């Protein structure tokens, strides 16, 4: 067999096993890479890319195995509960393939930009500051506002007390009485400017500090996740079964991003409705796709960022054009696909592995100068393309089976089984401390769902330890 044919065979095998690793709850492509340390680069590159596609399908039906797939949860789960889970996967993976190919076309530009050592040095020096700026941006654009001012809401059904007075000011539904009492009248109860014995219940309303206080929940998630990441990554991972390649990243990311959706699904109680199989979905528009693919370049440039961050940036960039869930899914897919391509680019052009699977691969010859590209780069890009095409096909194929399974399985069985597998895998690879990390990560990971803030804030679990190493 020639070298090219052997590399192609390795890439095909990697793509199949990578997709399988994402579809098995509790498993991750990094775990596969740990077992395959020293495997040829085409195998690991194709596995990494293919796993990213399959993770999008798994995230819709089984809970997200990592942060990139978790980013797609909200709109995808809304469609799942309308019986359109299969369509959600098709939209996600179509967006991902488009985003991947678009980013792949731009990779030579990336390699050219980072040919010189000076550019690399500049990037290294700027990385911590850029990460801080992005964390601040994600917090500031979360759009959360906190109601903090004491007020009373008109509540005829369950009054706590009765209020009387003269209305001296109105701001929307909030009326201010002469004695300073704020009264929320969203029922249209108040007639004229005098209130007599209105039945009210205690509530809180927004004020001038609501925007600033709205940063607190996101900041709290960041700090808790950062402290958890720092504590978890300081622990060495030792498998009680002697399995190779254990790392606390597995229970940490599974706890923060995978398990919370499963816990919530357990409590949801209702089975997913019968799932329709969507044979055709209209192609998404190019603008939002490009926004997703280009935003994903951040993942290549900066460590610890994920497709979820790229999605947040893409939504900000495509403001007003992501008006519906279908477009949101396409943008999310494009960001996830772009992130895979940019990760491969960073590995080839910067020598930085942004994924455990790429870190396990033999270090490639750095892609510099731009032309002629070294053989490593050509082989890796071909393997990535094979991984993308096979991952795309396998994710679509798996989505049909998962859609049937989701409708037939008792509502709690899938999430309970997936949670049990997550716990088993965490214990098998990292022992009892891994279970503590998984449980704590789940507690932290549930907070963004409950507080209505971005789940990407929890990626501070990796970002804050990186900043700590850079500055302390």
């Amino acid at each position, binding site marked *: 067999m020639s070298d090219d044919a052997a590399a192609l065979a390795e890439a095909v095998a990697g793509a199949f096993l990578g997709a399988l690793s994402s579809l098995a709850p509790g498993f991750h492509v990094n775990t596969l890479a740990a077992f395959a340390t020293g495997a040829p680069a085409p195998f690991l590159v194709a596995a990494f890319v293919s796993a990213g596609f399959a993770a999008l399908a798994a995230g819709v039906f089984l809970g997200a195995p990592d942060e990139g797939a978790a980013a797609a949860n909200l709109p995808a789960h809304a469609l799942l509960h309308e019986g359109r889970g299969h369509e959600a996967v098709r939209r996600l993976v179509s967006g991902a393939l488009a985003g991947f190919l678009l980013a792949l076309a731009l990779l030579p530009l990336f390699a050219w930009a980072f040919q010189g050592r000076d550019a690399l040095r500049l990037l290294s020096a700027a990385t911590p500051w850029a990460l801080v700026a992005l964390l601040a941006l994600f917090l500031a654009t979360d759009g959360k506002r906190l109601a903090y001012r004491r007020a009373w809401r008109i509540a005829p059904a369950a009054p706590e007390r009765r209020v009387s007075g003269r209305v001296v000011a109105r701001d929307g539904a909030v009326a201010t009485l002469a004695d300073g009492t704020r009264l929320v009248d969203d029922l249209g109860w108040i007639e004229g400017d005098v209130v007599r014995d209105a039945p009210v219940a205690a509530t809180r309303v927004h004020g001038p500090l609501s925007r600033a206080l709205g940063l*607190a929940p996101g900041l*709290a998630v960041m700090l*808790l996740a950062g*402290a*958890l990441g720092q*504590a*978890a990554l*300081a*622990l*060495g991972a030792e498998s009680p079964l002697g399995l190779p390649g254990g790392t606390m990243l597995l229970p940490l990311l599974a706890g923060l991003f995978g398990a919370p959706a499963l816990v919530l699904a357990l409590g949801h109680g209702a089975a997913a409705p019968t799932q329709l199989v969507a044979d055709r979905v209209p192609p998404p528009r190019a603008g939002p796709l490009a926004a997703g693919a280009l935003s994903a370049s951040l993942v290549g440039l900066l460590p610890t960022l994920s497709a979820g961050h790229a999605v947040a940036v893409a939504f900000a960039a495509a403001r007003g054009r992501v008006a519906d869930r279908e477009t949101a899914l396409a943008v999310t897919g494009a960001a996830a696909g772009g992130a895979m391509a940019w990760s491969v680019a960073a590995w080839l052009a910067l020598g930085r592995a942004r994924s455990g699977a790429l870190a396990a691969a033999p270090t490639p010859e750095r892609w510099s100068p731009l032309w002629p590209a070294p053989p490593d780069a050509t082989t890796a890009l071909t393997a990535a393309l094979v991984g993308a095409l096979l991952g795309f096909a396998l994710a679509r194929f798996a989505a049909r089976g998962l859609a049937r399974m989701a409708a037939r399985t008792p509502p709690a069985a899938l999430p309970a089984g997936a949670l049990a597998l997550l716990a088993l895998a965490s214990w098998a690879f990292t022992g009892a*401390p891994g279970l*503590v*990390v998984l*449980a*704590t990560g789940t*507690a*932290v990971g*549930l*907070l963004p769902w*409950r*507080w209505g803030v971005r789940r990407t804030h929890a990626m501070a679990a990796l970002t804050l330890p990186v900043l700590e190493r850079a500055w302390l």
Partner: protein
Amino acid sequence: MILARVASAMKLHDRVLVALALAGIAGLQAIAGLAAPRDVALEDLAAAEGSRVRVTGHVASLRVHARGAVVALVDDARRVDVWLDAPPEPALSRGDRVAAVGLAGRGPDGAPALSARAADLARLEPAESPRSVADVTARARALEGLPVAVRGEATRHLGGWVVHDGAGASLAAAFVRAPEPGPIEAWGTLRYDAKRAAYALEVDRWR
């Protein structure tokens, strides 16, 4: 006060989640503290047998074999073998100062040794990076026979050369080609000069 108000503003489920998160983080930090390796000197390794420790020293030799590698570490008082599961990456040079975390035990010859993963051995200071004269003279026994780089002031002294730091520490140096007196960085091998009854640096190159 503020924390109490924040806590009272949260719903019960949220308070439970935050409490669980804080307890988990505190527990993990406690586990990390308990599992953290103890720093021991090479000469005290025998007393720490069976426990997880961190040792530091200079690389005296590196032997790669089929199932890993053995790095001989030296400090001022002792030489100890560190048994690794794989050759260290990046490759080490003689004289590098390294730290290794592993399990204290005994080698096949019964001498105290450390068993460690290659990933748990870190180079702290390459042999190539120049040290102060005071540092080299203080660790002369550990560095004897190893490549050493020193930074100081070159001065003629009793027909030879010394490198000194201007604060009392000085080291005899043998140059193949005489340098200009003044600030210098010199690379060479540290030897014991029996004639002078002192350590001297056999300089290969300087700038």
